[in-house]
């Protein structure tokens, strides 16, 4: 850890005002399809998400925090996001994260990315840059990103299934060592060639995100 532990807690706090509360990370679609119905299936869902979309996002965040060109990372993120619904979501959340980050940890690098991508860069890249601006390390950024990748669906499942919140939090606690591992792998990858950044993907997340985007009635934006 960087020694800026409290800054990491601020960034990773579910109450950080960057729009995450309105998104379920695919959990709403999974609940409707019956793939997430209790704590055990929520755990399996979060585990798969952590090691796929979570790893990819954490590596992008770590690379941004390490000072790699955010626009090149944004292009890499596009190539790793075939679903237009998920690209829209990532940019929307990136724009919201940008607003919060510029208010909390202003820096010229954030300003430059905001100017280049006014409709939003992919959220993990903005998160990585925010971490950098807050004096945090690439590992911190990867931790925040990996954790957020599973805490979003877990919180949403509590609302969608009236799941016992203690059970949902226990799911997160049990996945914590794996989230640490994902963060470490993300940082290792971010130290190498950008072309080799992880591209781990989850076919069902991509497919169901498209279906969810067309639902006329839903609780979550994604």
């Amino acid at each position, binding site marked *: 850890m960087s020694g800026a532990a409290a800054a990491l807690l601020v960034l990773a706090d579910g109450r950080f005002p960057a729009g995450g509360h309105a998104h379920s990370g695919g959990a709403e679609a999974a609940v409707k399809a019956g793939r997430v119905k209790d704590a055990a299936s929520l755990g399996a869902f979060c585990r798969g998400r952590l090691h796929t979309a979570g790893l990819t996002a954490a590596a992008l965040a770590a690379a941004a925090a390490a000072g790699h060109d955010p626009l090149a990372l944004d*292009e890499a993120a596009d190539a790793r996001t075939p679903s237009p619904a998920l690209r829209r979501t990532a940019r929307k959340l990136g724009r*919201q994260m940008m*607003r919060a980050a*510029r208010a909390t940890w202003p820096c010229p690098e954030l300003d430059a990315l905001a*100017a*280049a*991508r006014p409709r939003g860069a992919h959220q993990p890249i903005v998160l990585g840059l925010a971490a950098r601006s807050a004096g945090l390390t690439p590992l911190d950024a990867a931790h925040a990103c990996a954790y957020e990748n599973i805490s979003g669906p877990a919180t949403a499942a509590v609302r969608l299934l009236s799941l016992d919140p203690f059970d949902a939090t226990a799911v997160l606690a049990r996945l914590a060592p794996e989230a640490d591992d994902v963060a470490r792998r993300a940082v290792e990858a971010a130290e190498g060639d950008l072309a080799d950044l992880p591209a781990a993907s989850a076919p069902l997340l991509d497919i169901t995100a498209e279906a969810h985007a067309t*639902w006329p*009635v*839903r609780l979550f934006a994604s």
Partner: protein
Amino acid sequence: MHLDHELDEKFPHRHTYSAAHPQRPDGTRRALRIGLGGPVGSGKTATVAALCRTLRDQLSLAVVTNDIYTREDAAYLLREAVLPPERITAVETGACPHTAIRDDISANLEAVEDLEDDLASQGAGPLDLILVESGGDNLTATFSKGLTDAQIFVIDVAGGDDIPRKGGPGVSTADLLVVNKTDLAPYVGSDLEGMARDAKEQRGELPVIFQSLRGEPGVGPVADWVRAQLADWTGKAAHAA
């Protein structure tokens, strides 16, 4: 190559990251933002629709809705055709409208700024007024000062005439309290005078309007209050410029 970035070029960077300024980043006056909150079924959407019908010929206005489920209120306003579709935006709240209007206002700020930018780029000129409607929520749901310049809290006589007495942040601190559906008072046995007394007790000098949208003067008094807010705002913005 990257098709998604077409909009980046169409809309150059200008979003703010602190909401309190009366001007947009390009120096033009931004629209006045008025929030409407209140419990489920109190008539927020009906009040917004009536305000749109009354004000749309004099002012350039737009609406942002915050729904529990997707975009029901926006769909209602579209069906009622109170404004053209490009002037109505729905913010999705993950089942928590109070979070979206108070704790994490980022999506709402995007929505109001996008409305201003989009309408300006379509040659519709600057917006005067944006109404931000919250989905029906509880008595504590209030708008963040980072999001709106003033807020209206809408309750109704049928929801219980003890609501003003109970108080809560919405009733006691909103810039305007609207007690709606006064036409129903005889049927539900609500004591309007008692409600007025309790409201005065809770709110001191802050205004209260008793309203029935069925018949005259309808939304007129609330529309007058909005016009007064706007005149005040325009004066302030001119002063700031």
